[in-house]
């Protein structure tokens, strides 16, 4: 993968240039292609810089007015020019936590099944089917969530959870619409599941077979191989896959905006409507006019999302590099 021709590498530049005549056209071709591809790479960086600039610039009214106190305030009353991201950060955390709580065990289970247990033929069918979940557009998932999942949640799931686990305050009295933090969490779980599943499958496949076979030779059952060898060697990688999945959940806007009910404030019960950083932007930005405190506050929310994205990406990358699974990481990121 050297960028120099073979002959140059082994015989030095002088020998090569005397042996093969280089005409100026090919030299230009080389530098043109190199220049073009470098410029293309720069576009991605420029876009990123542009995003940061636009968010800071348009968020200026709110940034200068509220400062970091914005993060802690929980009131959001556009009519009284009171804005705070506290309740929205809380809503984002709760919906993502619900999604992670459901999707992490399922996804890791699927990863184990696909990497160690399923027969070859099953693997080739089940794997792609699970990944196909990630292909469903979020607006369709949200539309389905509003018209199919929400009625089911309010008719069956909420009463059942309230009756069996009602002593825990988060399962409060059932609501009538089904548009709630819980429904949003369920929709997010569907989106996050294929990410965690395919990432953790790739991770489990990186465990050296000497280790697993050694454990098997010592008489370990399959579970003992998983518990004693596979999970300990991949633990932080599995954590990274969950972090990446949650990162996706944090940034999902449309489906959440459709099913969460756009409520204000912080509620204990997950059956109440809520709002996340993204859903608030999606639902209220069309009402605003540019360069006002209102629109500035929404840009501020986007800036918070950007910082969260930076944190989850760096965290997941750091862990992935330790595992030398950068390539499967890149693949899964691009699911």
């Amino acid at each position: 993968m050297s960028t120099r021709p073979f002959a140059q590498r082994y015989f030095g530049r002088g020998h090569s240039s005397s042996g093969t005549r280089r005409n100026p056209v090919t030299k230009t071709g080389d530098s043109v292609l190199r220049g073009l591809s470098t410029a293309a790479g720069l576009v991605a960086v420029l876009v990123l810089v542009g995003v940061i600039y636009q968010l800071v610039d348009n968020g200026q009214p709110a940034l200068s007015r509220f400062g970091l106190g914005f993060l802690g305030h929980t009131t959001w009353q556009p009519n009284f020019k009171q804005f705070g991201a506290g309740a929205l950060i809380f809503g984002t955390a709760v919906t993502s936590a619900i999604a992670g709580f459901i999707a992490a065990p399922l996804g890791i289970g699927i990863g184990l099944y696909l990497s160690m247990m399923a027969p070859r033929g099953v693997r080739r069918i089940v794997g792609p089917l699970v990944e196909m979940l990630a292909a469903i557009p979020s607006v369709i998932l949200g539309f389905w969530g509003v018209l199919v999942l929400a009625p089911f949640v309010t008719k069956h799931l909420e009463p059942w959870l309230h009756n069996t686990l009602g002593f825990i305050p988060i399962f409060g009295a059932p609501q009538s619409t089904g548009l709630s933090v819980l429904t949003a969490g369920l929709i997010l779980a569907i989106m996050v599941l294929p990410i965690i599943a395919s990432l953790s499958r790739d991770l489990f496949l990186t465990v050296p077979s000497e280790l697993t076979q050694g454990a098997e030779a010592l008489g370990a059952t399959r579970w003992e191989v998983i518990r004693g060898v596979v999970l300990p060697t991949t633990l932080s990688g599995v954590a990274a896959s969950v972090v990446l999945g949650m990162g996706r959940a944090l940034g999902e806007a449309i489906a959440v905006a459709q099913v969460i009910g756009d409520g204000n404030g912080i509620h204990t019960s997950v059956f109440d409507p809520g709002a996340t950083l993204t859903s608030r932007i999606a639902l209220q930005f069309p009402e605003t006019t540019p360069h006002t405190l209102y629109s500035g506050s929404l840009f501020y929310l986007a800036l918070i999302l950007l910082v969260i994205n930076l944190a989850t990406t760096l965290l997941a990358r750091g862990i992935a590099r330790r595992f030398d699974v950068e390539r499967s990481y890149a693949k899964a990121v691009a699911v």
Partner: protein
Amino acid sequence: MSDGTLMGTDELPYDPTSPLTPTGNLRRRMIFSRAVSVAASMAAYIAIAVLIVVVWGVASRGAHALRLNFLIHNPEGLAEGGIANALIGTALMVLFGALIAVPIGVLTGIYLSEFASKKSRVANGLKLALDLLQGLPTIVVGLFIFGLIVIPQHKESGFAGAIALAIVMLPLIARSSQEVLLTVPGALREGADALGVNRWRTVLGVILPSAMSGIATGVILSTARAAGETAPLLFCDGIFNPNATELNLFGHGVPNIPLLILTASDLAIPEAFARAWGAAFVLLLGILLANIATRIVLNRSLKKRGGA
């Protein structure tokens, strides 16, 4: 081995004729292990069940859309007519976005795999930028384009929406092209080098052609993803009237499928749902078919490469 006295006892410690079934502790361990296996396979089948429930939920309500009339007529009123305007609008925007994102994305992939040395800071920084761009919530992309294009132009347009979609596609295409280019055997590069071929001719004449099917797969998958994206269009290409028939990208908002579905679910008017289910079914069908088709092609080309 002729008699039992070799064992030092008169009796064998076990009955060699009894079936080999584990007992006691081993039995418990094996049962537990089996239970874990069953649970793991259940997890996979739960995921597939969810997929089936969602796809069936959309298909059963939207199957009426597979009529020619629905696909080639513009909408009339709240519930009458078809979705031709939104279909064409989405196709136009995705195509325009792809025209921008594909060359830039593929060139970025070429830079990462052919020109940047593996350990270089620049390449690592670029990869980080691509990852960040990929992880960027799509609604933030929408806000970015709103600030960049919509505010200065004082209008929403299909052009702004297409640029937003291009930004969504770019990191997907770049990373997948890079992945595919890295799987091109090094022997091809060395062979071209040994013949004294210049770098750019090697890339364009040898490496790109042998990676073409993989790059095309990445492009199709990311285009399919962009076709279903709603958040980047929300502020850049808002359609306040789903019946609008504007198809000029540089005019005003262009109707599109994702926003048609979103508007219907916001309206909460049951009559509008039928059309939205139909649109959702058409979109979902297109995206799933694109996924399945590319997967089949990719498997076939992998097999060919493995067999060669």
